[in-house]
């Protein structure tokens, strides 16, 4: 359970987050939707306790999170960023094992867990020995995901996990991820600018604009009862043009 209550964050004169509240219920996927600069990545970093909020609070399973008090998140949160955020000096195996190593897992346990995840994502031993520079974009995202999952955390915070991928790979991975989240019963907070992705993943969507929550609800609610014209504008901007609709 992730609870964000009235969080604000300013960078100089700019309000990165303005009175943002949301709740991500257990075993659901909550999507933060917005264009770049809307504050969605900042919110994720506040939730992780990497950035201090100017006002409001973040609770994870009822316990407040701040940069000074985030030890209770250790091992309970998987985090992944756009393009995987992999360490270029570590192999796939090194990257995926790192969170387990940081927590002092026994070597055998880590090896076994990495193997299980590799099976899940279709990586063989040779692939595990490769470096990020030797991987395709899609492979890097998969590694980032494996690393986020290695500790089997109940919470996953994913920042544009499928950004910067070509459409076909992206569609494949989207399907794969959705199946995975459902099967594993994770509570997911996912940041994206892609409306279709939001539809695909989100049981609940929070639409952000310039640090402010525009509307919260399911996609159907957003589409049918837009809180303001911007909602419709944002949702339709990424829809296919009318003359192509029949093809979809």
């Amino acid at each position, binding site marked *: 359970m992730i609870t964000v209550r009235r969080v604000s964050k300013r960078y100089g004169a700019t309000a990165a987050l303005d009175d943002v509240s949301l709740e991500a219920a257990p075993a659901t996927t909550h999507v933060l939707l917005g264009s770049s600069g809307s504050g969605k990545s900042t919110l994720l970093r506040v939730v992780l306790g*990497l950035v201090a909020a100017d006002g409001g609070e973040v609770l994870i399973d009822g316990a407040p999170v701040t940069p000074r008090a985030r030890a209770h998140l250790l091992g309970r949160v998987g985090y992944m960023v756009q393009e995987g955020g992999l360490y*270029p000096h570590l192999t796939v195996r090194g990257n995926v094992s790192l969170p387990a190593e940081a927590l002092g897992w026994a070597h055998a346990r880590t090896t076994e867990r990495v193997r299980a995840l590799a099976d899940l994502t279709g990586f063989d031993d040779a692939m595990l020995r490769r470096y990020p*520079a030797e991987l395709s974009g899609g492979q890097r995202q998969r590694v980032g995901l494996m690393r986020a999952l290695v500790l089997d955390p109940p919470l996953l915070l994913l920042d544009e996990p499928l950004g910067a991928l070509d459409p076909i790979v992206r569609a494949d991975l989207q399907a794969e991820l959705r199946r995975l989240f459902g099967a594993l019963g994770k509570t997911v907070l996912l940041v994206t600018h892609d409306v279709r992705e939001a539809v695909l993943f989100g049981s609940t969507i929070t639409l952000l604009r310039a640090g402010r929550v525009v509307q919260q609800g399911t996609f159907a609610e957003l589409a049918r009862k837009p809180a303001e014209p911007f909602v419709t504008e944002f949702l339709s901007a990424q829809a296919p043009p009318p003359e192509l609709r029949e093809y979809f």
Partner: protein
Amino acid sequence: MRLAGLVALALVTAAPAHADSVVRIGSKSFTESYVVAEIAAQVIEATGQARVERRVGLGGTGIAYRAVAHGRVDVYPEYTGTISRAILKDPALESVEAIRAGLRPQGLTISAPLGFENTYALAVRADLARRLGLERISDLARHPELTGAFTSGFLERDDGWPGLRRHYGLALARVRTIEHALAYQALASGSVDVIDVFSTDGRLTRAGVTVLRDDRRFFPAYAAVLLARTDFVEGHPSAWAALERALVGRIDGATMTRLNALADLDGRSARQVAARFLGREVTDAEERGRLARELGTLTLQHLQLVVVAVALAVLAGVPLGILAARSATIGQAELMAVGVLQTIPALALLCFMIPLLGIGTLPALVALFLYALLPIVRGTSTGLVTLDRQLLEIADVFGLAGWRRLARIELPLASVSILAGVKTAAIWTVGTATLAAFIGGGGYGTLIVRGLALDDVTTILAGAVPAALMALLFHGLFELADRLLIPRGLRLVMVRPR
């Protein structure tokens, strides 16, 4: 801790301390000083009672004097005028007795004069001297139409041109500044009529010049003597007696000029010239063989200076760079301090070290260490502060913080920049280490300094070429180190010229 380690390491690598059977002979870095010191060395070697350590080519009076005063050298050739003016700061002291009395409190003494004086003198072209009848400096007063070109020191010093002009009531049509090395050519070509020279300059033997007699005794006495430690004179009476027998009153001005000419103009080594003076002969083949052996020793010394100094600079510089990356204030202060060190001329830094550390390997190592710090500290801190923030945040989320994050993530990611700093430091140090020779630190600089003093390009190249090769070697070694120390994954993303 670090300082203690440094000192311990340097002690291990430094030359052995004073031993009874060793006489350490010094010289300054000009021909005459090399030659007289070498004569002294061969005299002592001939007694068979002591081994000689040559700490020759010391960079100037200040360094040579400190070396003997602090017990790093037992004896070296010096001039009475220099001792009274530059060391005792009392130009009134002229006699040997007065100078001995002045030196006694410092545990130093001098021999009786060796026989020659090396003082300033004025020289004119021989044909001009014949035509105008110039023999004495006072003769110049009759010819105000003549022009002069003097070295900058002579032009400014009170015991140079200003005093001389007053003393003799001289006036010249025109007086210019000239480099010593060019003065003889300028005189020969007729572009000037009068130049200042050193009275035992080898070139005086054949340049077709006439030295004017100082008939009104203006130039102070710069009589050559041996400046020695009292404890050496008393502790090695037979060695000292041998030196006095062979040298005192034995080298007159004409002889010294001839010996200088052998070295400067005929390309003989100081060892060959000294042997000739002592009635022996060292052949060119022997000399070449010795140079080859010497080159081996110097290579080891140079390598040792570079490796030890850079290794210590890495041990100190990487932690300092980490500290600098952690705090902007500390970082600024640190880079400023290290940067200021860099602006101190190497020779001055070496000179400051002598009272603290003496001469030889230790002060050279410390100076090289200080110079090597800047690129390493900067490479480390720059590498760390320019890391991708997001990658560090991710490590934080995983609970990889503090030292663990530093070791596992930050240093490996910054390794390219750190190694670049170390590489720069090493290659600089190969070059800077040539200056160690000025304070008896050995290395290739020994040959460069000697070659410069003897105006002998071959000797200069014998030091400079291996130094350049060693720089190349280090470059190659670091290419190898890049492969070993930079994680493969990082090398994959480095852009390399093909």
